[in-house]
């Protein structure tokens, strides 16, 4: 593998190196590369359970993403990240291996050329501990030649070139990360992580459906798909009707109010956290921060969430909330931009 040439002062990019930005998410991971590839993959890794299932997958040893979810009955399925960080291995678990394979797959999806050095920035939750970061570095080292870990909201803000007077709210599946930016790398008190996120919406929706339609057969995967397709907060939408099996027969159910109620559980905790971060900021810049609240992550796709947060913020001084252009890729695009801007000698030193 040949070494890239270091950047010069003009910021020219090292030759023969592929720069990659990765948003390693609990439910879904995204990757953006300097070669223009942008892909997303459900964060699931599965190994065929036995010879029969191995035959089903034509001898492939590892199955990833949606295919793994769809075939979960014939796989030892792992979702290696929980609350945005890699889960530890208890007896017989393969979470670390699954995380390693997931990163390798994401990098493979960028189709790196032969002999290219791979330099990557990986986004992690704001409050990831040193141990969590070390675990991610450990598993990524086998795939990438040089790795940097950066908090997810910072990646989002950097990708938008708005690292001053902005408050980023990154709603993932495992965690909701909030971070206020003031032109430098955020300190610990600039960020906060909420445990309530997309997975909790799924759990709430499942609970509500089970309570309202006890005869309907529903599981978490079905509920997750419904949320991703119809999730909304705030204003009433068209009626949401879905088929659930009742005694094995597909039957239509109206779940409009249930979807809204489940999705709404995110609003109050997010508004409280926003308020705390604004209130503890330099008073002179609080208004600017209030006017620049950005939603990203899969949760940002929920219809009307920004409006609902704005309405609640009215009680504590108001605010303007916008959703990033591409919530699913905002993190990986920002991570890629960081990777591209980073001087080549930094990359060399981290090898």
């Amino acid at each position: 593998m040949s070494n890239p040439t270091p950047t010069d002062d003009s910021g020219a990019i090292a030759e023969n190196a592929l720069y990659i930005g990765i948003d390693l998410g609990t439910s879904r991971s995204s990757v953006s590369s300097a070669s223009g590839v942008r892909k997303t993959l459900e964060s699931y890794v599965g190994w065929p359970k036995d010879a029969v299932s191995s035959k089903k997958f034509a001898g492939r040893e590892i199955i990833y993403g949606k295919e793994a979810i769809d075939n979960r009955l014939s796989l030892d399925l792992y979702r290696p990240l929980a609350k945005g960080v890699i889960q530890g291995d208890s007896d017989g678990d393969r979470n670390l291996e699954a995380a390693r394979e997931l990163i390798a797959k994401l990098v493979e999806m960028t189709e790196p050329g032969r002999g290219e050095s791979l330099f990557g920035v990986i986004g992690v939750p704001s409050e990831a501990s040193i141990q969590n970061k070390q675990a991610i570095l450990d598993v990524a080292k086998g795939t990438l030649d040089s790795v940097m870990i950066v908090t997810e909201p910072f990646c989002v803000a950097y990708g938008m070139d708005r690292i001053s007077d902005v408050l980023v709210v990154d709603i993932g599946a495992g965690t909701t990360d909030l971070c206020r930016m003031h032109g430098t790398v955020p300190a610990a008190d600039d960020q906060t992580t909420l445990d309530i996120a997309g997975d909790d919406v799924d759990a709430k929706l499942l609970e509500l459906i089970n309570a309202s339609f006890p005869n309907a057969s529903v599981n978490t995967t079905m509920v997750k798909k419904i949320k991703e397709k119809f999730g909304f907060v705030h204003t009433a939408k068209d009626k949401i009707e879905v088929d659930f099996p009742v005694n094995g027969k597909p039957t239509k159910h109206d779940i409009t109010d249930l979807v809204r109620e489940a999705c709404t559980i995110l609003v109050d905790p997010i508004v409280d956290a926003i308020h705390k971060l604004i209130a503890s900021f330099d008073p002179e810049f609080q208004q600017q921060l209030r006017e620049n609240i950005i939603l990203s992550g899969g949760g940002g796709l929920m219809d009307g969430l920004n409006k609902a947060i704005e309405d609640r913020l009215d009680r504590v001084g108001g605010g303007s909330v916008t959703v990033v252009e591409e919530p699913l890729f905002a993190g990986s695009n920002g991570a890629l931009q960081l990777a591209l801007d980073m001087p080549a000698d930094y990359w060399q030193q981290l090898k």
Partner: protein
Amino acid sequence: MRETGKPVEGHVDASTAEEAFNLMAGNGIVCESLREDPRVGHYTSEGGGAASPKDAEVASAIDSAFDVSSTQVNVDDLWKRYRGQQVRVIDRDKIRQRVMSVMVAALKQSGETGASQNQTLERVEEALTKMFGDNKNLTSELSPTQTALEDQITRLNGVVLRLEKQLAQLTMAIRRGGYGGGGGNTQGRLMKQVKDPKNDKVLLEIFETNLELQKQIRKKEAQEMGPPPTGDAEASAPPSTD
């Protein structure tokens, strides 16, 4: 070349010609020319199926025959002589495949008709004679323009790859800054350079944080591995009498 100055043939395992030259140079071997040596394991039957171990044995024998009967020639002379003309080159892989297929067909036919060993050998000999009688079974057409075209395509690939990278960077810059004026970007900024010097401090801070993180990992790894061996021999060695 060895110390005697006489050229010798040898084999080196490498994925590209450049890598092969580098490997040999690294071992002090001056190489005049390279000849591609398709691996035996690469043989596949005409139907696309994998070769059996027996097939591989035969293919290896054919390869040995090629190696023994081949002579190195100066490519420049050939180039001068055949420049601009269409030439056919001996295709080792093609020959290997054809030999295998005619032999398999002849043996199969003998098996089905219950032929004796002599009859089988005669049939195989006849099949091989016919096969070698037609040059098209042994060679592939290769024109100088074709090789030049292949070189150009390889170079073009490199150019396209570089262009793709630059386009991706440009796209990122546009997404971040947009174009000024003309009702373009709402923030009215000029298109940014990919690298913004105002972020240098931030980049340095991120780098330092990650460097520290890696140091901690290395320290932890070193602790887990335990202290380096003290060296019993050294410990038990008699004290110096100087």
